[in-house]
């Protein structure tokens, strides 16, 4: 089977700053991958380009064997239009560092309204799906609360439920515990642990939780200067990194 995500020679610059420098990366179906590395190394940008929140300046991204930013018109390849981008986006879900729940909607509506609007699910079905997922993340008693009344950990669990309601093939987690108080990190990681058992779900996580990355990932990608400087199983990358920069990074993280 072809990889679910392929990045080929992807370049992304912000002005003079090169964020992704000819990045090549593949993620297999159902694989759980953790992206680690110093800040500014391009980890989050990788997720944001896959989600189409950032365009790319060169190279190619494929999702499920299809080009993200280009489409076929007859025999020609042309830049993707909005309809193509929306079809591609439907395969991917994303959870953000700052949760980004919709503050004007209750927990239930945050999870239910998007699938109603975007997938056109009838209300009873959308509601049932939303309630099931809210229960899955353990917030059944908060369905009618507004996000402003929830803790960060609870908000992030709602955000995960909201993304899962679309049943995406790929879930992107962009530093989802970085904005949380330390005592709230565990409840969110527990939800991710639970998802990691989903065999078919592909998970790509940018994280600074090294212990967690090691525990649930099939593969670790160490980023530096917009490229993958080292990759391998958690055992290999954490126990015997071959790259000096990886070693220095891991030492610095452990000392913190």
């Amino acid at each position, binding site marked *: 089977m072809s990889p679910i995500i392929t990045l080929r020679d992807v370049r992304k610059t912000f002005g003079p700053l090169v964020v992704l420098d000819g990045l090549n990366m593949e993620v297999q179906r159902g694989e759980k991958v953790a992206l680690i590395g110093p800040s500014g190394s391009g980890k989050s940008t990788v997720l944001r380009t896959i989600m189409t*929140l950032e365009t790319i300046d060169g190279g190619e991204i494929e999702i499920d064997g299809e080009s993200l930013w280009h489409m076929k018109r007859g025999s020609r390849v042309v830049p993707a239009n909005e309809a193509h981008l929306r079809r591609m*986006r439907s395969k991917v*879900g*994303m959870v953000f560092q700052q949760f980004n729940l919709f*503050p004007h909607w*209750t927990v239930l509506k945050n999870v239910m309204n*998007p699938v109603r609007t975007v997938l056109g699910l009838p209300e009873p079905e959308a509601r049932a799906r939303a309630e099931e997922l809210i229960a899955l993340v353990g917030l059944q008693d908060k369905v009618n609360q507004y996000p*402003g009344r929830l803790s960060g950990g609870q908000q992030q669990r709602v955000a995960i439920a*909201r993304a899962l309601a679309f049943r995406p093939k790929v879930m992107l987690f962009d530093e989802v515990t970085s904005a949380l108080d330390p005592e709230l990190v565990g409840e969110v990681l527990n939800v991710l642990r639970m998802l990691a058992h989903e065999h078919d779900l592909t998970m790509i996580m940018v994280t600074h939780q090294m212990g967690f990355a090691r525990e649930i990932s099939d593969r670790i990608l160490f980023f530096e200067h917009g490229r993958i400087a080292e990759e391998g199983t958690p055992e290999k990358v954490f126990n015997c990194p071959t790259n000096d920069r990886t070693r220095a990074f891991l030492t610095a993280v452990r000392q913190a």
Partner: protein
Amino acid sequence: MSLIYEARWVLLEGALNTIIITLAASLLAGAMAFSAGLARLSSIAAVRCIALVYIEVFRGVALLVQLFWMFFVLPFFDIHLEPITTAILAIGLCNGAYGAEIVRSAISAVPRGQREAACALNYTRLQTLWRIVVPQAIPMMLPPFGNLMIELLKVTALVSLITVHDLSFQALTLQQTTMQTAAPFTAVLVGYFLIALVITGIFRLAERRAGVGLDRGGLR
């Protein structure tokens, strides 16, 4: 006081005209504010430019001059408008230009993460605007819109200068016909204040309803 009682129908007619102009001009201003405010944020340069020209022209010209121009100059181009129509158009367009900046700033103040989340959930741009961004921007627009509508009520007094029988016009007429000054002007002073009070009340209620769930800062 007896003068006010005798002239009650005259004054009520004036109040009614003032209220009609205020409501109609506010509706027009609201529609223009949303159109021009959103157009200012359009990705199409021509649309942004048209909105900008509208806003700057109608903000930059004295309302009285706009009223006189529509009332006295448009007939030369064979456009004849009723005085009250002229009043509603001029006041609505002028206040819509101010309102457009309120709409634009409130829309821009909705955090970027909200749009990104909507994009990640595969909302179309239009769905993002109407379901995610505008509902969060409206509570921010309400206090300045309340201000603007009270401003609008007060500038309707200018329409007495183009022969509309509004509250101010009736007061002037009463003063000239009865030679009394204090009573008619005190009556319309109270009249404007009461109408403004109703507007304030409506916006208070709307603010309370629209703010549900949204975390708003305060000093307490």
